[in-house]
């Protein structure tokens, strides 16, 4: 006997099949999140597979799934996502935080707790949705932060997320293009204990291979690293940080897998006053720490 069409398990099976058939990545995970969202839950884990959906809910699921069929990322459809234990609003074209960045903020936190036991001033370059600066502020109640991004949408989203997490009091967000900032126009010379950045670092070759989820919906400025090796923006962030870091301050970067040795080379040759400490030996080897001498 076939199960009625309005129970969760049938809906999940149906949409997983449709997504799969249309080459939508992560078909069953996507269906799970969208159905859970309609039922007011974050994940499908605790939703009873026997639960029945009302016709209104069925329609809502359909609307969301049609968006997914157009390769809209789940995080944008649902309008929010979790970054560690923070729930943040997500809105195209602002970059959706990646799982690797959850690692980065923990490493930076350990560093801050070590070097600045009382309070610190943090800069987040390319803040996007605000994930990095907001998570650090939440875990370091006496710190203050300045976040910059080239995108007005990103700046607004960071402010919105700061407000909803009650952190706006300790954060100032500025629209700023670090590639055009020079020493004379700089508002904050040698001020920061830590500069953190997850700059765009995708190479031209990788760009060609990106899924529509990225190319159709996320800001290209948040992805394209620039230059044949995708290092252009990284280098600008390093240059910018050199001027904004305190003596003894640290720059933390999340970069592409191939970048750490290239960055080490660049710093040795072009950045007197900065020391490339290490590519942090974590599970993907993409976190770099630079120290201002």
């Amino acid at each position, binding site marked *: 006997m076939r*199960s009625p069409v309005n129970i969760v*398990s049938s809906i999940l099976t149906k949409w997983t099949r449709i997504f799969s058939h249309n080459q939508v*990545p*992560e078909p069953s*995970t*996507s269906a799970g*999140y969208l159905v859970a969202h309609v039922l007011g839950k*974050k*994940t499908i*884990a*605790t*939703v*009873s*597979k*026997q639960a029945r959906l009302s016709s209104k809910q069925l329609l809502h699921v359909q609307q969301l799934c049609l968006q997914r069929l157009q390769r809209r*990322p*789940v*995080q944008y459809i649902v309008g929010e*996502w*979790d*970054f*560690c*234990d923070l729930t943040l609003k997500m809105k195209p074209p602002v*970059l*959706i935080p*990646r*799982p*690797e960045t*959850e*690692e980065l903020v*923990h490493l930076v936190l350990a560093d801050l707790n070590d070097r600045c036991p009382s309070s610190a001033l943090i800069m987040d370059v390319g803040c996007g949705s605000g994930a990095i600066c907001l998570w650090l502020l939440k875990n370091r109640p006496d710190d203050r932060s300045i976040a910059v991004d080239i995108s007005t949408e990103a700046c607004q989203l960071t402010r919105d997320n700061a407000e909803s997490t009650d952190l706006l009091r300790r954060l100032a967000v500025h629209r700023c293009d670090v590639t055009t900032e020079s020493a004379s126009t700089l508002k904050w010379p040698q001020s920061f204990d830590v500069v953190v950045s*997850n700059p*765009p*670092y*995708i190479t031209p070759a*990788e760009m060609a*291979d*990106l*899924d529509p*989820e*990225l190319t159709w919906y*996320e800001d290209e400025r948040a*992805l394209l690293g620039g230059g044949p090796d995708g290092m252009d923006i990284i280098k600008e962030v390093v240059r910018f940080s050199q001027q904004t870091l305190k003596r003894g301050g640290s720059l933390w970067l*999340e970069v*592409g*897998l191939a970048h750490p040795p290239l960055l080490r080379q660049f710093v040795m040759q072009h950045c007197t006053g900065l020391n490339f400490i290490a590519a942090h030996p974590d*599970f*993907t080897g*993409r976190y770099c720490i630079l120290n201002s001498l």
Partner: protein
Amino acid sequence: MPEAPLDDNDIILEVTAGVGGQEAMLFTKEIFEMYEKYALFMNWQVELYEHSTTELGGLRRASAGISGLGVYRFLKFEGGVHRVQRVPKTEKSGRVHTSTMTVAIMPQPKEIDIVIKPKDIEMDFSKSSGKGGQSVNTTDSCVRLVHKPTGIVAECQTERSQLQNRERAMKMLKARIYNKELEEQVANEWSTRRLQVGSRQRSEKIRTYNYPQDRVTDHRIGGNQSNLREFISGGQSLHCLIKCLLKESWKESLLEMYMYC
């Protein structure tokens, strides 16, 4: 009542459906919910680690971390096989069936109790995430950890954040490794007590829930509790039985001390 060494620890509660197919899985869900409600009753915090539901609304297995005051102390004798006797919803001829499920209560180790070398742990992400970086958008945050020296595994996908799943999987992994060590120690001890904890209990039938006769029987202390529905709602009724079990256990340990003095 004197406290045993682990009484203060937080725990991981694991439920697994046993014999009885779909009916066993429905019963597993009911017992898991009973403990969730009991945790609420006792003001404890519950973190969900695993929750494997079936197409027909049952629960195959689930794991949750429970933390708070005296969690292990109160729940330690809940481990074992729980049995239900009733007419299943799907049963047409009105016959009473017996199904089982297993509860495992594992104390969570404190920092000093357990040392795990990071290199001993293998971490698996789902295929589409993990090393993707900026070039991939992923929502599949499932994390699977394997402790290479023992082969013990823990998996979590109850959260949207990969890091949170990893933290929970790690807690489960540590508790399972710790419990394996504890059980190896206890296995060599000999005791005639009815109320014991450990792997021996995993296969012992400790309680029967009989719906037609509306009674719950704990096989270690005997006696029946009526009003099954109240009992399974995880409130005062369950709490009373647990207190009886604790009192009985204390008496037994005193007796044992006397016998071997």
